[in-house]
């Protein structure tokens, strides 16, 4: 696991998850994105010079949903094009604030890209899972490809 300079704390339905900043994530406010109409988990687009990047909604269990109260989207690199995840909130945490221990979830990975998590921050008795950007992008890719 690479050592990032900082972590992004993503809040999904009131649950915190950490995302390492490795790979250069971009954060956009909801107001700065183009809304995507329809009932599905594709909630917005980010217009760039290189094309449109989609942002998807996931619930706290990382199942596709169309969240009502999301405020920001985090975009990160993926094979074909960057993919975004809509979150209730996104906060920046410095590396010195967070001590991450390795964590491999038992069982099969939820997508061919691998496990969703590769670490955990133990804040006393509280456990905050740390996302593996590759696994998250892989999961979002399966959401994007779903009919």
């Amino acid at each position, binding site marked *: 696991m690479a050592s990032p300079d900082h972590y992004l704390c993503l809040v999904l339905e009131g649950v915190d998850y950490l995302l390492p900043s490795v790979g250069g994530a971009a954060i956009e406010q909801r107001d700065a994105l183009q809304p995507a109409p329809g009932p599905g988990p594709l909630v917005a687009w980010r217009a760039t010079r290189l094309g449109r990047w989609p942002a998807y909604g996931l619930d706290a269990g*990382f199942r596709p949903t169309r969240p009502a109260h999301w405020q920001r989207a985090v975009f990160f690199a993926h094979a074909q094009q960057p993919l975004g995840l809509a979150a209730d909130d996104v906060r920046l945490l410095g590396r010195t604030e967070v001590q991450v221990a390795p964590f491999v*979830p*038992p*069982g*099969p*990975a939820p997508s061919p890209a691998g496990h*969703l*998590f590769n670490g955990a921050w133990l804040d006393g008795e*509280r456990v905050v899972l740390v996302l593996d950007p590759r696994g998250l992008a892989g*999961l979002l890719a399966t959401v994007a490809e779903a009919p």
Partner: protein
Amino acid sequence: MSARDTGRIHSLEIPLVGFSLLVPSAVVAEVANPGALYPVPRAPAWLLGVMAWRAQPVPLVSFEALTGRPPADISPSSRIVVFYPLAGAPVSAFFGLPSAIEPRPQGVTAEALQPEDPAALPDNALIAAGVRIKGRRMLIPDFDALARTLYPAAAP
């Protein structure tokens, strides 16, 4: 003089809901009280969540659910049996198994063991064998099969 020299294997009986497991004490790192449990998204039903133990995250696994039964609730009388990482698993992959009540130490000797009729055992790859000690049936897990189930990408 080691336990093996005396013919006695220090073991732990782990009472679950409906059956008990018998494991060598050497594979157990600690018996802990239940802590706050945090769900792991997109995990199998047998992965109950993750808890903090000695400053590291420990996943809790329901052996009942792994063998096709409903996962047992964790109650105030439950204990968490924390296992050392399995062979082939990541080096930090301690895991916990909730016990319905306090596990019981067993000094097991060959004379005290009665093998259970294999036909009477659950048809499950995670069960290596069954024994009876003082009339009580206990199941012995297959740790290699457990490693392949918990860490399919890492186990040999």
